[in-house]
C-alpha cells in the first residue's frame, strides 16, 4: 500500500487576539477533513507545541504556514523569521499580519504613552510610578521582559510573504476555500496564483456584495449612528449619511455588517488594486458628497470627527502614512 504523505501545516499567532485561530476552528466538521489532509506540525492554539522541534525542522519543510498577528515585540519578529525559513508557503493570515488591524492604531502613540496609559490608569495604585522594564533587578536575581518595538509592524515589513488572506477575522467559508485550493495545489491538482496574491478575498468591494439599495443619492452632511433616529433597513448606509467603509473595502466577507445595520468598518482591507485604503475611501466619500467647491467639501468632511480612525482604522501600520519606514528601520 502506498502511503501518501500528508501536507505539513502550521499556524501561529504573533501579537493577535486569537480570533483568526477561532475562525479556523469554526470550520466545524470540515476540520476533520482538514486533519485527514494535513499534518499539523505547529499550532500553539490547539496543540502542545515543541518550539525546539520547530527549530530543528529543515528549512522549507512546512508546506504551508498561516501567520496571524502583528509584530509588536522582538519575539514576534524572531518567530516571523523562523517560520519564514521553515515554510515553503508563508501566508499573512488576517488583518493584523497584513495591515496591522486595530492594534496598529498604537502607532499613533509612543511606547511611553502606551505604558503611561496602562500604568497610571484611573484604578491603578502606583505611587512610585513604576513601569515594567525589559530588565529588572529582583533581590533574588535578574528578571527579563521582551522589549516592545517602537511601532507595530505588519508581517511583510519583517519578512517576505507569499500569500495574503484578508479579514478580521477571515470568514470561515473563505478559509475553507483557501485551504481547499492550497491542498489541491500541493497535490498537483491546482495552480496557485502568482506570489503576493490575495487568497480568500474578492476582486471588488463590499458595496458589490451589499444588498442595500443604492440610489446614487448625494449627501450634504455626515452623521453618526447615535444621532440618527431611524436607520432605513434597505437603503445604502452611506446615502443615509453614515460613514460606511464599504466603497474602499475588499469584498469576500458577505457584507455582514451592513446587512446587520452596522456600517462596514473596513476589516477586509483595501479593495483590489488599491494601494492606500484611506485615499480610496476619501475619494469615495468625496464622490457622494453633494458639493462642488473645495470649501464645501471640507465643511462636510468636518462631519467625520476621527479622520485617522475612519480612514486607517485597520490599515494604519501597513499604510504609507505611518509606520512602515520606521518599522523597517527598527528591524534592521
Amino acid at each position: 500500500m502506498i502511503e501518501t504523505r500528508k501536507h505539513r501545516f502550521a499556524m501561529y499567532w504573533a501579537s493577535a487576539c486569537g480570533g483568526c485561530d477561532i475562525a479556523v476552528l469554526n470550520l466545524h466538521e470540515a476540520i476533520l477533513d482538514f486533519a485527514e489532509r494535513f499534518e499539523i506540525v505547529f499550532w500553539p492554539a490547539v496543540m502542545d507545541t515543541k518550539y525546539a522541534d520547530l527549530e530543528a525542522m529543515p528549512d522549507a519543510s512546512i508546506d504551508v504556514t498561516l501567520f496571524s498577528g502583528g509584530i509588536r515585540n522582538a519575539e514576534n519578529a524572531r518567530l516571523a523569521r523562523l517560520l519564514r525559513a521553515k515554510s515553503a508557503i508563508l501566508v499573512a493570515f488576517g488583518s493584523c499580519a497584513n495591515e496591522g488591524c486595530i492594534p496598529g492604531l498604537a502607532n499613533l502613540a509612543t511606547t511611553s504613552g502606551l505604558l503611561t496609559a496602562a500604568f497610571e490608569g484611573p484604578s491603578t495604585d502606583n505611587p512610585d510610578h513604576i513601569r515594567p522594564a525589559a530588565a529588572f533587578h529582583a533581590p533574588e536575581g535578574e528578571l527579563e521582559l521582551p522589549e516592545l518595538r517602537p511601532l507595530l509592524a505588519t508581517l511583510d515589513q519583517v519578512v517576505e510573504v507569499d500569500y495574503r488572506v484578508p479579514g478580521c477575522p477571515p470568514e470561515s467559508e473563505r478559509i475553507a476555500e483557501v485551504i481547499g485550493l492550497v491542498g489541491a495545489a500541493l497535490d498537483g491538482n491546482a495552480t496557485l496564483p502568482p506570489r503576493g496574491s490575495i487568497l480568500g478575498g474578492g476582486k471588488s468591494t463590499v458595496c458589490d456584495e451589499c444588498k442595500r439599495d443604492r440610489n446614487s443619492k448625494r449627501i450634504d452632511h455626515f452623521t453618526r449612528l447615535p444621532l440618527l433616529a431611524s436607520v432605513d433597513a434597505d437603503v445604502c448606509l452611506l446615502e443615509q449619511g453614515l460613514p460606511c467603509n464599504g466603497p474602499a473595502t475588499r469584498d469576500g466577507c458577505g457584507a455582514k455588517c451592513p446587512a446587520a445595520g452596522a456600517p462596514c468598518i473596513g476589516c477586509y482591507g483595501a479593495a483590489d488594486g488599491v494601494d492606500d485604503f484611506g485615499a480610496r475611501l476619501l475619494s469615495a466619500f468625496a464622490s457622494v458628497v453633494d458639493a462642488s467647491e473645495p470649501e464645501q467639501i471640507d465643511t462636510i468632511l468636518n462631519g467625520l470627527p476621527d479622520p485617522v480612525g475612519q480612514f486607517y482604522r485597520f490599515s494604519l501600520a501597513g499604510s504609507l502614512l505611518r509606520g512602515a519606514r520606521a518599522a523597517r528601520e527598527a528591524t534592521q
Partner: protein
Amino acid sequence: VTRLTIDPITRLEGHGKIEIFLDDQGDVEKTYFQVPELRGFESFCVGRPVEEMPALTNRICGVCPEAHHLAAAKAADAAYGIVPPRPAQLLRELMYCAFYVTDHTTHFYALGGPDVIMGPDAPVADRNILGVIRKVGLEVGSRVIETRRGGHRVVELIGGRRIHPCTAVPGGMTKGINAQERAEIEAIARQMLDFAAFSNELFATLIADGQTRDLLLGDLFRHETYYSGLVDDKGRVALYDGRIRVVAPDGTEHGTYEPRDYREWIAEHVEPWTYLKFPYLRKVGWKGFVDGADSGIYTVAPLGRLNAATGMATPRAQAEYERYFATLAPPTNGVRPPVHVRGAMHWARLIEMLYAAERMLELVADPEITSTDVRAMPTQAPTEGVGTVEAPRGTLTHHYWTDADGLVTRVNLIVGTTNNHAPIALSIDRAARGLIRHGVVIDNGLLNRIEMAFRAYDPCFGCATHSLPGEMPLEVVIRDPRGETVGVLRRGD
C-alpha cells in the same frame, strides 16, 4: 541561589514565564509569574468615537469578543445616559448566554476538561479533545461540534457576525430578530440545554472515581481568598448585568456595589517585572502574594461567581448548585463557606453552562424578543460611562470618558483574567513549594501540576496578552546561580 525558569515554549512569543528562585537549602525562596505582553488599547482608543468602542475593543480578544462588545456597548450606553429598550437588553443577554454555553463547552471538552475526563495520569497524547472523543465516544464529539456551531450561529443571528459581532451600539442594537430566527435560536437552545445536562452528569460519573476526585478537589490548590461576581437583585449569579457582590474567605459579605463604583472597591497593584497588573480589594489592601482575610486578593470566574452568589436563577442549575456546595463546602454554624479548592472551577463552569442554556430558553420565549424596538436615542451629550459584564474568565469592566462630541478622552479596562492574576500567582507558588524540596525537583509532576493549575482558571491571556485559554505548553529550564543551564524539562519528553 539556584534559579528555575519555567517558560512556555512560546517564551519567544511572550505568552508568560515563571521564574522560581531557590534558597541555599534548595527550597523555594520566591516565584515570579511574568506576563510579557502589552498592546495599549487604553492609549490608542483615545480620540475614537465612543460608538465605535464595541467594534474596536472586540479586537482585544477573539476568544471572548462578545464580552468586550457588550461591556463596551454598556459603557457607551452609560456615557450617553441611555437605558436601552427592554427588547435590546433581552437580545444582548440571549447572545451572551449562547456565547457562554459555547465557551464553557470548548473549555470542558478541549482545553481544561481533558484533565478531568482522561484523568491526570493519562498520557499527554490522550489529554486532548481527540482523547476525549475516544473515551466518551464519537457521538459526544459530534455534539461538542454541534454545540459550538449552534452557539456561533446564535451570535451571528443576533450579533451580525460569528466572530467580532457588530450590532450592539449605544442605546441598544442595530437590529432585532424575526420569528423565524427566534425559532431557530430556540431549537439551538434546547440542544444546548440537553448537552449541558449531559455534561453535568458526565462530570458526576468522573468524580465518582476517587483518584480523580482527590486530585481535582484535594487541597493542593486551596487558597482562602475573597470572591467576587455579578449577582441579580436576589443575589443569584448574573452574567450580563447586575451588582457586584464580594464575600470574605469565611463566606460573610464584604460588600455589594454598583459596577460604576468599582474604583471605590478595586485597585490595581503594579510590579516592575510584569506587564499585567494585580487587582485587589481596596478596603482590605494589597499585602503581597498571600491569601487570607487580611489580604485583598480576590478570585473571579466560575469559582468566584458561585461563591459570591447565593444561588442560581434557573431550576436545574440551582439543583446542581446545591449539590456542589453540599459536597464541597457543607455549612458550619449555619454559614455556608466558600469553596476554596481551585479544581472545583471545572464543576462550577458546568453549572454555569446549565444556567446559561436554561436562561436562553427563558429569553427566547419572552414575547418582546422579536420586538423591533431595539434602540433608544440619546437625550444628552455623552460624558462618562462604566460597562461591566461577567466574561467567562471573570468580571470585565470598561470605563470611558468622552468629550461633548462623544470622542473618547480616557479609557480604563479591567479584564476578566486580570482579576485572577494574583490567585494564579498563588497557585504557581503553591505548586513550586509543594513539589520542590531541598533542591529535589519532581520534574513531570511539577509540569503537570502547574499546567493543571493554569487550566482550572482557564486563563485568557488573549485579553491580557494574546494566548488562547487552557493550553500553556511548558518548558522548564534549570539554571545554576551563574545562570548556566544545567537541565531542561519539557512536557511530552
